[in-house]
């Protein structure tokens, strides 16, 4: 019994320590973002732009078909279920509030969080962090800050794209088979969507983006000397990021909708 309690206690302490370290890393990156020396701004901006390109632009061919499939499937199912009366409300409820941020987060985790963790792990093993430092550059500013801003901005953009494509693209795809007049559909969506839906969606995108970035950076930095540690770190980063996103999603939904 004592053994079980001890084990549970140790695991809890480790989990709390891990969370505190994630917060500490987030704080350090954010601090770096606010205390911006004049040097290196152009270089940092370029890395941010590259990160947005990798995470948002390159993900478009993936997120658009997924949004279309999810949007059209939703519209087909709910058009049958609610006899078209609550269709707009249901679509807004599901897409803007819940599915949009979560599916976008999942895509960003699969594409970018894993890539960032692998990149950081590789940089750690092959002393590339030291290469930055030997040039007098702070790796937090040169590596972490651009990724935090880049991925979070990409997350917001992808979330907006997902919602729009899912709702309107989904409608366009099933227009022929559902007989829902476009005017009706738009009016329903307009009535159903509120300012808080948009704010909550954006908040989720921001928190998800920051959480995914910090978790994947942390796991990448956690790699010590062996390249064989990288797959484990990547797997942990992906699972943890998704778990944290789900928890944040529930937390924000409870705060705003209950």
């Amino acid at each position, binding site marked *: 019994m004592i053994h079980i309690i001890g084990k549970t206690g140790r695991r809890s302490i480790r989990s709390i320590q891990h969370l505190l370290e994630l917060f500490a890393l987030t704080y350090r990156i954010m601090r770096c973002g606010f205390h911006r020396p004049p040097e290196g701004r*152009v*270089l940092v901006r370029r890395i941010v732009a590259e990160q947005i390109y990798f995470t948002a632009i390159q993900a478009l061919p993936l997120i658009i078909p997924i949004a279309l499939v999810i949007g059209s499937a939703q519209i087909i199912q709910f058009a049958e279920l609610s006899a078209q009366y609550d269709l707009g409300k249901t679509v807004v409820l599901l897409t803007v509030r819940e599915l949009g941020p979560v599916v976008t987060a999942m895509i960003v985790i699969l594409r970018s969080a894993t890539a960032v963790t692998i990149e950081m792990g590789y940089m750690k093993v*092959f*002393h590339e962090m*030291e*290469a*930055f*430092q*030997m040039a*007098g550059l702070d790796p937090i500013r040169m590596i972490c800050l651009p990724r935090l801003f880049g991925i979070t901005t990409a997350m917001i953009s992808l979330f907006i794209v997902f919602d729009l494509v899912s709702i309107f693209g989904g409608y366009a795809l099933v227009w022929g088979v559902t007989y829902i007049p476009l005017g009706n559909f738009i009016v329903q969506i307009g009535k159903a969507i509120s300012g808080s839906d948009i704010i909550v969606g954006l908040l989720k995108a921001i928190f998800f983006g920051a959480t995914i970035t910090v978790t994947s950076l942390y796991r990448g930095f956690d790699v010590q000397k062996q390249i064989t540690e990288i797959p484990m770190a990547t797997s942990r980063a992906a699972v943890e990021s998704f778990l944290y996103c789900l928890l944040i999603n529930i937390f924000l939904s409870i705060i705003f909708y209950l």
Partner: protein
Amino acid sequence: MNTETPVVELEDYYLAPQDESRGFAGVNFCLQRGEVVALRTERPADGRMLMRALATWVSPLAGVYRFMGTPLDFSDYRSLLPIKAKIGYIGSDASMISNRSVRENLLLQRFYWENRLGIDLHEKARSLCRQFDILNKLDMRAAQVNSRDYMIAICIRELTKSPEMVLFSQPEDFIGHAHLEMLVERWSSIVDNNITVVVFSYDDNIIDALANRTVTLETTS
């Protein structure tokens, strides 16, 4: 009597054993401006570790590291960044940023400090790239060039960043024979004579050609 502030001073410096190195206890070591010192240790791993310590990559257990008279604070890595920028470290564990081109790696420091991206290599860097035959590889990603050119690019990067001290760790292990010979031959024209250089090598030819003093250090027993 030399009254000038030494470039590097290690005082009662203790380094913990790490990997194959047995660590150091109470090292006292002083390097003057313009000196080219050959470092001798019992085991290669100890020498490599000391070179990494001089590059401020390894924190001491105890003791003081003074660089240009200023004691270094190893508790915050950010305070070491301006010091690291003044140290050129050329060793098998030095690296470039692999997803950037060789040119970008050579210009990284200038991109940052000059705060603009539309700049090209200085004449000295360009001339070294030409001499060592990597001019046509500047636009390749660092990960794409072969290991010899990779290390040559690191040499050029470190030698052209205006360092106060250059650490040259076992160059015979990673620079091809021909290039190493060329580098040693042209050393005096590449490296200013007021720069402090520490050479750690088991190749006596390199030491004879470059060093004007030898320091032998003993590890912890």
